[in-house]
């Protein structure tokens, strides 16, 4: 039947079109439908290429696992989404083609495509340590602070929310005292994205010259604030991510520090006056926010596939596609001109004010730190372990961070 | 009062009625034999007494209390199951003593009872065997031993000796009786062995199709069967029962006849029955080659070895009757003459199948039918 023909080995269909696979992680709640629409649209208009989209559960980690199995079998899809935290790992271990290389080789007409349409700090997100363009940023997210205005009002606080982390702490404490509810929940997934935002905004650096340096004074101070809220004030619950979000949506937590990708979930399910404000800064400092989301990388092996891959990518990065993409996912568009364009997001942004917080803080975006080398992932894990320890109260912030920093540095050697 | 009383007890499985209105009393301390054809409800009755089978309707009294709802463990009953129900994972000793250990009978006492039971049932040397490594008869003995050691007030035995050889059976039942004479539990004992029934039973309850047919001493059951079923069921070869006509003090077999004793004549006249069946046990039918007064003529059909005598099957005007003889030389087709012992005949009402009763003179003649107890 038809099924067998869609296997990875199949490189062209009956119509002589090149068949390529596009691996994504977009569940239905995260733009899955949009992926399907885009693919359908593309397939309808392309005369040379047919795209098959494969959904990979369990986010970028899940995709990476599947990719690994595929690679072990000596095969590869044409295009994959690579989460930022996997940037280094991906670059070190998988075969890929730099998009510019493909453009240069086969599509001279697109030579300046990247330069023309992407901010350089955005493009830089997808560059390896040596500046090589590994892929092209596709989904961009930043952390924002969602606030329950009703609760803030109830606690007699400014309904526009806190501007700084110090204020967040104060707000939280007040909320706890006034309403008995929790003040803030800072997301705790199995990565250090939010942690990085917290620390680096205070001037710490996760990495300096290939060495972990987060246990600096600024780093410790920033972390301490979080730990104090959890342990001392008990105004921030120590919950897993989904339970934290759930508790914010049903009104048990007044503020939620998490990705803008959660906007639609929060917006459509909360029954209070909800708003998203920019990520808090530290007093006197400007926030540095790691970019979340993913880039698209080309892993296709043979020429036809690569060419087809770029054709599809180019389609995905058109203004219309990116706009659709943004509407469907809640991610920030990677292309600079989309937000204002008539055929872009103009109307959408007008309707969904909460997006603005994310778009406005784009200039503060820095790459998501991805520890270098083979032990990078392990290093990342150590940082997660110490988060559990600190927030669980089994170790002091200073001690924990210092020890971890040291361990990581040993690993990275 | 270790008495067991059935008051209109019924038992059915779904729509199948298995026990149909039992009404009788098992006296305290007696040995009652439960006899009846296969499938007549003996095991079911026993199991009701043990409390293993729910009573569908009616009341069962034990010790003057209705026990319909008393759990089996509370009835102080020991039972030998027809299919043994040995614990397959316990060896002989454990099987036998398990109940005692549970009831915290002292060690030494347990040991004594065990030893006695092993000895009584010749199970010495098999103490550590699992049931699966025993022969059929050995398993049955273990089952019996398990019940014997319990010394319960009620002792129910469901064909406890059926798989044992004659010698062992005789010795086991003697031992059982000996134990009983000592402790006087109330025993209900199912057996298909009629000699066993006669030797062990103080009274016999005969069942058929879930109904009680007769309940009396072995002598009476044997010599004064209450109905045709009883007469035919007890004794082997079975009682000959032939439908006859009664005429003027005579019993007519087709065109042959013989004269009843006056006491029988009186009995028949009193009972006012018209259709009569005549019964006589094979051993009460003398077979001769020559005619005599009051004999019936027939022809030999065949002879069957009955162990220590021979059963001669005789065609008597189309009815097959059996007579016992010491000799086996009864050629087929030979004409023979049968002479019933006139004291030992049975007459039944053909309609009800019940006995028309026995002349009072018979009782006097045989003096009192007191039990001859068995004791060594």
């Amino acid at each position: 039947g038809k099924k067998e023909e869609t296997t990875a080995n199949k490189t062209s269909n009956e119509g002589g079109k090149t068949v390529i696979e596009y691996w994504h992680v977009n569940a239905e709640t995260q733009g899955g439908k949009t992926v399907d629409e885009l693919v359908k649209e593309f397939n309808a208009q392309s005369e040379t290429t047919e795209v098959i989209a494969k959904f990979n559960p369990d986010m970028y980690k899940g995709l990476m696992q599947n990719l690994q199995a595929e690679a072990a079998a000596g095969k590869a899809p044409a295009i994959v989404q690579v989460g930022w935290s996997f940037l280094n790992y991906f670059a070190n271990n998988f075969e890929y083609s730099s998009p510019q290389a493909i453009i240069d080789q086969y599509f001279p007409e697109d030579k300046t495509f990247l330069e023309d349409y992407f901010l350089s700090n955005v493009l830089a997100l997808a560059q390896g340590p040596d500046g090589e363009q590994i892929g092209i940023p596709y989904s961009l997210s930043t952390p924002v602070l969602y606030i329950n205005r009703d609760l803030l009002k109830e606690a007699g606080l400014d309904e526009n929310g806190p501007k700084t982390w110090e204020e967040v702490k104060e707000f939280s404490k007040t909320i706890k005292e006034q309403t008995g509810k929790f003040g803030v929940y800072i997301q705790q997934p199995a990565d250090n994205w939010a942690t990085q935002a917290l620390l680096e905004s205070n001037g710490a650096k996760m990495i300096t010259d290939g060495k972990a340096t987060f246990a600096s004074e600024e780093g410790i101070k920033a972390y301490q604030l979080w730990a104090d809220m959890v342990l001392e004030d008990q105004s921030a619950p120590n919950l897993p991510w989904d339970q934290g979000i759930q508790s914010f949506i049903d009104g048990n937590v007044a503020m939620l520090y998490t990705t803008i990708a959660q906007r639609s979930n929060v917006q459509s399910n909360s029954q209070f006056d909800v708003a998203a404000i920019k990520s808090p800064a530290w007093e006197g400092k400007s926030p540095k926010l790691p970019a979340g989301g993913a880039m698209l990388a080309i892993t296709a092996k043979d020429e036809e596939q690569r060419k087809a891959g770029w054709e599809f990518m180019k389609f995905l990065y058109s203004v219309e596609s990116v706009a659709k993409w943004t509407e469907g996912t809640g991610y920030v568009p990677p292309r600079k001109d989309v937000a204002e364009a008539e055929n872009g997001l103009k109307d959408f942004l007008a309707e969904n004010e909460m997006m603005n917080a994310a778009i406005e803080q784009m200039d503060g975006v820095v790459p998501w730190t991805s520890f270098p080398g083979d032990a990078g992932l392990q290093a990342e894990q150590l940082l997660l372990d110490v988060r559990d320890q600190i927030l669980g109260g089994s170790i002091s912030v200073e001690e924990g961070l210092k020890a971890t920093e040291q361990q990581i540095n040993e690993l990275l050697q | 009062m270790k008495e067991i009383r059935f008051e209109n007890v019924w038992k059915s499985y779904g729509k199948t009625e298995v026990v149909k209105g039992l009404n009788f009393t098992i006296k305290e301390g007696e040995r009652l034999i439960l006899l009846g054809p296969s499938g007549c409800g003996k095991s079911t009755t026993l199991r009701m007494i043990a409390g293993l089978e729910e009573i569908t309707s009616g009341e069962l009294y034990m010790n003057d209390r209705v026990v319909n709802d008393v759990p089996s463990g509370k009835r102080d009953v020991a039972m030998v199951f027809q299919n043994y129900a040995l614990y397959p994972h316990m060896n002989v000793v454990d099987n036998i003593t398990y109940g005692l250990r549970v009831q915290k009978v002292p060690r030494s006492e347990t040991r004594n009872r065990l030893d006695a039971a092993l000895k009584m049932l010749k199970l010495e040397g098999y103490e550590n065997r699992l049931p699966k490594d025993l022969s059929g008869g050995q398993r049955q003995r273990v089952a019996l031993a398990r019940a014997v050691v319990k010394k319960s007030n009620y002792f129910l035995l469901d064909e406890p000796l059926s798989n044992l050889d004659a010698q062992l059976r005789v010795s086991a039942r003697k031992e059982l009786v000996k134990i009983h004479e000592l402790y006087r539990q109330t025993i209900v004992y199912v057996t298909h062995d009629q000699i066993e029934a006669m030797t062990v039973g103080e009274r016999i309850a005969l069942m058929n199709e879930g109904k009680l047919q007769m309940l009396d001493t072995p002598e009476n059951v044997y010599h004064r069967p209450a109905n045709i079923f009883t007469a035919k069921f007890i004794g082997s070869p079975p009682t000959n029962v032939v439908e006859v006509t009664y005429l003027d003090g005579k019993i007519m077999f087709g065109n042959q006849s013989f004269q009843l004793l006056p006491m029988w004549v009186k009995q028949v006249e009193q009972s006012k029955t018209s259709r009569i069946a005549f019964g006589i046990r094979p051993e009460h039918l003398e077979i001769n080659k020559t005619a005599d007064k009051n004999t019936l003529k027939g022809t030999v059909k065949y002879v069957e070895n009955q162990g220590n005598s021979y059963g001669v099957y005789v065609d008597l005007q189309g009815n097959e009757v059996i007579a016992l003889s010491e000799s086996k030389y009864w050629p087929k087709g030979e004409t023979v003459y049968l002479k019933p012992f006139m004291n030992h005949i049975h007459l039944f009402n053909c309609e009800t199948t019940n006995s028309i009763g026995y002349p009072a003179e018979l009782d006097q003649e045989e003096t009192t039918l007191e039990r001859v107890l068995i004791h060594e």
Partner: protein
Amino acid sequence: MKINRFVSIPWHLIFIATIFILIFPIIFAVGSSFKSLQDAYNNVLNIIPIQPTLENYQIFFNSLPAIQITVNTFIIAAVVTIFKVITSFLAAYAFVYFQFRGKTVLYFLLISTIFIPFTVTMIPNYLIISKIGLTDSIWGVILPQLADALGIFLMRQSMKTIPISLIEVAQLDNLSHVQIMRDIVLPLIKPAVTSTGIWFFISSWNEYVWPVLILKTTDNFTLPLALQMYISSEGGTNFTVAMAVSVITMIIPLALYLAFQRYIVGTFTSSGIK
């Protein structure tokens, strides 16, 4: 058997309590599947939705080839179950009724595989499936699951409780092994076969880790994979749709269980033996 009534009352209470605990999540799931997501977030205590909606089910049926996915799942589960039962049965039979060289070692070897972490087999199995070109095919999902050590284990244990006399009777009748299996052994261990079969079915039906690796196109997806499409840490889990998919996922195994439940009773194998 007569039991003191008072013994049973506390037990009934215990069972009712246990069952409540066990069933509550299911009711919660079913209830949630008829709620709007907003309702689910904000009214957790209303197990029964105030305004029931079929929206969640519609979302599922509209966004995915639901029928195809259910059929895929069913084929996988059914084929896997049937094969596992058959291969386990045959192997167990060999272990119980044959004496052959290497029996013990082989048995130990087979049984020991139940301790092999799936992390060990995942990638190598993927490589094999990929070599035979069965990726993105339900047959690729099925193939490695056609035998099961636990199935062999349980069936062997059950066969070992069949009284040997019954096999002897069969031997006397000169029954072939096929006949002994079909007419004697199988009926006698029916409870074990049925309960394990149902379990195989449910396990395969709910299997996720392995199919995720093999299946790529939504047309080939199974229900647990479809469910994953509503679960996302970053975009948020659509809890109510996920529950709707779960409820749909539950229905077929449940129906199967109801149909086969009556076979899960003891066979009284000893009733024919004195």
